């Protein structure tokens, strides 16, 4: 599996072959608070880099989930739809959102590595 990469919209992404797994970062869940609703893209649909690909809602507000790369949705994580609190518990592990069959793997190049993202998150939080 590839190195974990991060987007400015606070998504994480890993790549295995040509299938990317995408979720939201721990930092994002800390900003959102208790997550009580998740909506995921439909399997078989196509999503475009930086486009919306889902929604999460906390007790306070709704936030869009973006996809950091383009591709066809090949799998979604029903467990987080059934129990959204899992997203707060394990955002960067078992609570992944969706898997995409990527069209253009070079889209990964512009994303941040862990160190870059941690700095970005620290700055955007202050």
């Amino acid at each position, binding site marked *: 599996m590839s190195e974990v990469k991060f987007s400015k919209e606070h998504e994480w992404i890993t790549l295995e072959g040509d299938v990317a797994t995408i979720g939201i970062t721990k930092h994002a869940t800390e900003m959102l608070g*208790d997550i009580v*609703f998740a909506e995921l893209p439909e399997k078989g649909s196509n999503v475009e880099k930086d486009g919306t690909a889902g929604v999460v*809602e906390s*007790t*306070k*507000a709704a936030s869009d989930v973006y996809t950091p790369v383009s591709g066809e949705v090949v799998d979604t994580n029903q467990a987080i739809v059934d129990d959204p609190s899992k997203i707060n518990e394990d955002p960067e592990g078992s609570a992944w959102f969706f898997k995409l069959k990527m069209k253009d793997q070079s889209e990964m190049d512009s994303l941040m590595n862990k160190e870059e993202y941690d700095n970005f998150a620290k700055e955007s939080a202050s």
Partner: protein
Amino acid sequence: MEIKKTSLNKLHQSNNAKFVEFAGYEMPIQYSKGIIEEHKFTRSHSGIFDVSHMGQLFIYGDESLTEELEKIFPLDLKNLKQNCSKYSFLMNEDAGIYDDLIITKIHEGYLIILNAACKDKDFEILSNLLGSKFKMNLDNNRSLIAIQGPKSVEILNSIINGVDQLNFMTGNWFDSDNQKLFVTRSGYTGEDGFEISISNDKAEKFVENLIKKGAQLIGLGARDTLRLEAGLCLYGHELDINKTPVEANLRWAISKSRLSNGGFIGSKIIMNQMQNGANQIRVGIKPEGRLIAREKTKIFDDTDTQIGEITSGTFGPSINGPIAMGYVNKEFSKVDTKILLEVRGKKHPANVCALPFYKKNYVKGVN
């Protein structure tokens, strides 16, 4: 304008509050445990709420003040016993609501608790209506602390002996730590609890004592989910100048004895709507599944006609599901009516339901 802070601001900070601006005040939206934990703690134990941003208006006067206030509020104040509280509204001639409030008859006159965002305007309106005959004091030197939840009576009584003898919607002056506190058994969470009016310089120590006894600070986020589960209105959402108490389904708050002769501001519209009904009514709404319908969500019938709008919507932690309130045309206001909510461009099924979502635990008969 500079943001205002309550006397508990430092205490909020030291308890890791996340702050928001609310009605010109820097207020805690939540602490480190988060809204759901705070909500559940209030329901099972005892939560402390800083509601010092709300207005505490003392109006001093005798029987003639009661007469004047009856020209304003739809209440039977003549027969209201001393130290008893009523929920009411300040209205315009069209029965539009300027503010909702709690009014308590006290030895010296009346104490009215007003919403933070409305209090200055309320003061102006009431000053104009009452003239200079009665001394009025919108007291900025006092803080207001709410303690809510089943353990609150035990905790508060260990600090202010005797509060356990208060019935729901009554209050009294108490002596504690060499000062006078006004305590009412009331609140806005659907739980048994109290509101304590205390001088600013004593508030922090008082709250620290409550924390030592096992209560915890709770933010405005959980206050909102708690009041929504209890089916209670929030000014600026369910209530505003374009809504009447009858439309807001608050008929119970209008004294029956005032409906035959009227004589209060907005009485013509109120009496007409009480008899003939209102066109739009506030209802409880339960979306199917886990969908959350926020404020301003449009409500439709099955023919694609808009029939109303959501005024508050969230996830109810004790209900463990989404809940909302909103206004619908009266023919859709019956419990179990199927309606559709438009969220992110799609229509989702929901049902009109009875309020409250969460059953109350108020203490009615201590004495």
